[in-house]
């Protein structure tokens, strides 16, 4: 076998393995879609049909009329946007501060950010439950936003720190010599350059918030205040689950963010991995 032939064989083996791996992703997702357009009868008929005979889009209507998913999505949107905005503001300042200055407590702050990753969120759960009961924050947007920024602020601060580190410090020094104040340097010179990093951070904070489960499970008891993951999750306990409706709502809440991410993936992935890869 010549070198070229061997190379070609090698490539086709790699291609085949990747193809098989991809089917492990594609088949479940298609199965989700196929279920969502089935009628009740076809969904519970044997042998199971991979492709439905009659395609029915009713599930996509029922999720808005028969279930309070609209309300849940609105709740999720309000809570997650609130938490994301607060985290972005706070973490841009913190990221800039930790990137540009060497000060007492800087290492302690960074270590603390890292350690927060180790807290089982369940460790905060019980104190949160009690504190929020005391302050009347159960079943409120404010309560959930408080809980959510406990993990979005550390994440966003790390990402912003990484991004600010990639912007040359000479820029600050030049502006400083020209007499600009610290705040002006941050706000008018460095921040505009950090906007792509801010956007990436926003997407990540939003995704982790949107997917959050356990805090919302405990901190909301009122049906009107549930977030979408809780709303979807609790229907699983029912005896005969309407899987077509479940798969329809699952797709509706997953697909927009997934598509957004995939469009921006090159840029989003590089801002996530920058910190981990640096030697």
């Amino acid at each position: 076998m010549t070198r070229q032939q061997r190379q070609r064989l090698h490539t086709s083996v790699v291609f085949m393995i990747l193809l098989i791996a991809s089917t492990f992703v594609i088949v479940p997702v298609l199965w989700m879609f196929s279920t969502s357009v089935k009628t009740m009868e076809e969904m519970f008929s044997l042998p199971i049909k991979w492709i439905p005979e009659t395609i029915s889009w009713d599930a996509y209507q029922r999720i808005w009329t028969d279930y309070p998913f609209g309300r849940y999505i609105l709740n999720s949107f309000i809570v997650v946007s609130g938490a994301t905005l607060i985290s972005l503001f706070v973490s841009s300042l913190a990221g800039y501060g930790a990137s540009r200055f060497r000060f007492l407590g800087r290492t302690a702050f960074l270590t603390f950010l890292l350690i927060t990753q180790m807290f089982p969120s369940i460790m905060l759960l019980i104190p949160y439950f009690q504190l929020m009961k005391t302050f009347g924050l159960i079943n409120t947007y404010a309560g959930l936003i408080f809980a959510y920024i406990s993990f979005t602020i550390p994440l966003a601060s790390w990402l912003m720190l990484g991004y600010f580190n990639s912007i040359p410090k000479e820029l600050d020094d030049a502006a400083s010599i020209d007499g600009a104040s610290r705040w002006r340097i941050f706000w008018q010179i460095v921040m505009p350059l950090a906007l792509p990093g801010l956007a990436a951070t926003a997407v990540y904070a939003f995704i982790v918030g949107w997917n959050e489960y356990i805090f919302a499970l405990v901190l909301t008891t009122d049906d009107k205040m549930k977030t979408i993951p809780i709303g979807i999750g609790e229907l699983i306990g029912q005896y005969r689950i309407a899987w077509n409706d479940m798969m329809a709502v699952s797709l509706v809440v997953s697909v927009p963010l997934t598509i957004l991410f995939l469009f921006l993936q090159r840029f989003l992935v590089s801002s996530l991995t920058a910190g981990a890869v640096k030697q």
Partner: protein
Amino acid sequence: MALNSNQSLRKTRSVPQRHFNQRQLAGLWFILPAALSLLVIVAYPLLYGFYISLFRTNLLTRWDFRWFQNYIRIFTSADFLQTVFTTLKFTVGAVAGQFVVGLSLALLLNTKVPGRALFRTILIVPWLFPEVVVALLWKWMYNPLYGLFNDILLILNVISEPTSWLGSTATALPSVILTVIWKGYPLVMLLMLAGLQAISQEQYESAEIDGASWWQSFLYITLPNLRNVIMITLILNTVWWFKHFGIVWVLTQGGPINATSVISIDIYKTAFEAFRFGRAAALAVIVFFIVFLISFLYQRFLGGDE
């Protein structure tokens, strides 16, 4: 004149000093909002959680201070050991599985294979789906009667009759782990891919000239260069899945019997179903120390220089 120059000398000396202090202060001002909010929403509740763990309490009518009784009871109970053991099996299975799949796919995607951008896009997808959605999808696929999983395995002749994967104590945990691997491998893949792309090609070229095999290059160039990324990934992943709740909760709620009762499920049930908040808080504190120990051990054995 003499006085003057003396003054100017002192001035020049004090300028860097003042400058330094200002820089210190400025840095503190910038991190202040983040530090304050984390103190209020993380540090204080954590301490409060530790405080609760010293009580026997339902958080309402009963607050009996019992020192470390909760901890003593936990450490002397066989249930706790069983839960930790289940959690370890779950974590090791999830982390090892994700690592093998993630690293293998990253190695494949790092070659000049046609369509690799498309493959990468497809392979990221499970990571982007919410935990609940992933759990729901797999629960439906594992459905003993109408699920896809049995159907495929029957077609492939792996099994002869439909199996209730989540319903039997023998298969529940492996089934949950498989779901978690599916959900979590893309992050490992992305991190490894970034690590691979940061390795300079020259190293591989000179190894090839020296006649190194693929395996040798992998062992002596790829792995050492990836060491940092591997360590970060393993630590974060272990910590993350050790305390995981959502997917297991939706798939099995810890059952059947206690086959998939990982520690966070145990804590949730102890607190919000049995209303033994003191014991649950103590369990949470213990989880923190276990997680801390795990990441310390990783750094010790994999870290080397740092």
